[in-house]
Every structure is written in structure tokens, then in C-alpha cells.
């Protein structure tokens, strides 16, 4: 029994390539049950990939998405919130500075200066 070359081009192919060609031919003649099972396996793999990709995409988008305001009302609320936060921080800093000055004045008047004042930084 010979493996007959099918065309003049095939005459130049080596034995491994001819074997590979016949193996490919065998894959084209596979029974329908196996082909269906392989198709199902492929779809299952692709479904898993889609689910995997979506879960990652959801995590990334969700984290970036939720803090951004979407409506004008939300934008106004966000601007007001930021203004209140900035104002509160400035007022607290002012109070803190004033309190420090008051403490220093009292210390000078009572001649009760803390040691830190005499240390040359």
C-alpha cells in the first residue's frame, strides 16, 4: 500500500509532511458527535473568558465611575461640599494659629517660656 502523491507538488513533500497531510484529512472526517462536543467545549471556554473579562471590567469601571457626578444637581452639591471643606479647613487653621499666639503671649507675660523657645533650630 503506497501513500500516493495527489499532485506534482506533493511529490516534493517529505514523508513527515505527507503524514501530517493525512492527519489533517483525518480531522476533517471526524464524527459529528466529537465535532459537536468540541464546539460545545469551545463555547464553554469562550463564555468563561467573557465572564472573566466582564468581572475585571466591572471592577475597574465601577471604582472609577461611582465618585463622578452625573447630573447638574450632583455637580452643585459636589462644588458646595468642596467649598465647605475648604472653608472649614481655612477657619480651623486660622483658629489654631490664633490660639498658638495667645499661648505665646501668656508665656511671655508670665515669664514662663517653654524650653523649645530657647533652642536654636
Amino acid at each position, binding site marked *: *500500500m*503506497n*501513500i500516493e*502523491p495527489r499532485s506534482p507538488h506533493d*511529490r516534493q*513533500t*517529505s*514523508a*513527515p*509532511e*505527507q*503524514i*501530517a*497531510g*493525512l*492527519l*489533517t*484529512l*483525518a*480531522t*476533517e*472526517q*471526524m464524527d459529528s458527535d*466529537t*465535532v459537536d*462536543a*468540541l*464546539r460545545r*467545549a*469551545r463555547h*464553554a*471556554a*469562550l463564555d*468563561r*473568558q*467573557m465572564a*472573566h*473579562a466582564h468581572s475585571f471590567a466591572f471592577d475597574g469601571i465601577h471604582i472609577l465611575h461611582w465618585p463622578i457626578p452625573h447630573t447638574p444637581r450632583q455637580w452643585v452639591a459636589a462644588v458646595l461640599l468642596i467649598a465647605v471643606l475648604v472653608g472649614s479647613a481655612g477657619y480651623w487653621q486660622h483658629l489654631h494659629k490664633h490660639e498658638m499666639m495667645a499661648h505665646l503671649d501668656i508665656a511671655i507675660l508670665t515669664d514662663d517660656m517653654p524650653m523649645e523657645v530657647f533652642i536654636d533650630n
Partner: protein
Amino acid sequence: MLPFHKPKRSNKLATPAELSQFLGNTERRAYKQALFAVRDEHVALDIVQDAMIKLAEKYGDKPAGELPLLFQRILQNTIRDHYRRQKVRNAWTTLLSSLTPKNGEEEYDPLESLADDDNHSAPPPPDAALQQKQVIARIERALERLPARQREAFLLRYWEGMDITETAAVMGCTEGSVKTHCSRATHALAAALKNTGVELP
């Protein structure tokens, strides 16, 4: 002629359609490779499905050009994992049952099936298609009888169309080993086929 055209190596990430097309083009050859290795249709299907899921989940977003190499690596590792599990299972079965290991191996003795093919009392093939099927069956049987590493190297190199470097990367060995495995596999296949009446040029 090689069974498929290798995609160009590019850094462009694979789209779901490209991944689907790649798996569609590869699945039958992958199944056959697994079948040659494990000789069980259901196990071969499980191995291919596992390899596809691993590729899709972990490397589905890799560039399309890298998919063939990655898939082959996953497939061969999955086949090796099956061998390891089977070895452990066989060890326990041997311990727990009265069957000897030789009995289990005899189930896969290829000489039994070869004896059927040498039965010259069978009627001659009626047409070329049947003859071709017989040749394919003998080739597949000869491939099953090859040592695992030789079969792996032969199929990757000549059927999957990988070059020596890629084959070595998938098999985790040196390029020299790939050449040796391929050469031995080709000689062993030619000899096995000649014994069954198939002449290679």
C-alpha cells in the same frame, strides 16, 4: 503542506472573535493530539476543554500571534498532568485491588490491534477512500505507539508547523533534543508503517 497558516506575530491583543477563530481552527488537531496520548475519547475531550478554558481565562487577552504557542504549552501540560494523575491512581488501584499492573497495560497493547490489520483474509478495499482511511488508521496507530516525547515533537514540528525553537519552548527541552526526537519519530513511523504495508517515499 502545513495544516494551518501561522498568524503574524503582532502585539495587537486578541479579540474574542480572533480567539474563537483560533480555537475553532485548532480544536480538532488538539483533540487528536490528546487522543494519541491518552487513547480515550472522553478523557481527550476533557483535556482539550480544560486547555481551552485555561487559555481563554488566563491568556485570552494576549496578542493573537502568541495564542498557538501558549495553547500548545497548556495542552501538553494538561496531558502530562493527566499522566501524573493516572500514575497515582494506578498505584492506588494496584495497592487496593488484586489486579496486577501488567493486566492494565495489556488493555492498551497495540500489537493486538495490529494483528487485526495484518489479517489478509479480509476483503480488499473497494475504493480509494477506504484505502486512505486504512492508511490514516495505521498512521494513527503508529503514532500512538511512539514514545510520548517523540510523538509530541513530531506533531508539534510537522503537524502544528512550529519551528524548532518554538517546539523546544513548548516541550521545555533543548533544540537539539527536538531534532533528535523528530528524527527518531520519523524513522520509527516509517518503519512501523512499512511493517504494515504502507510505503513512504
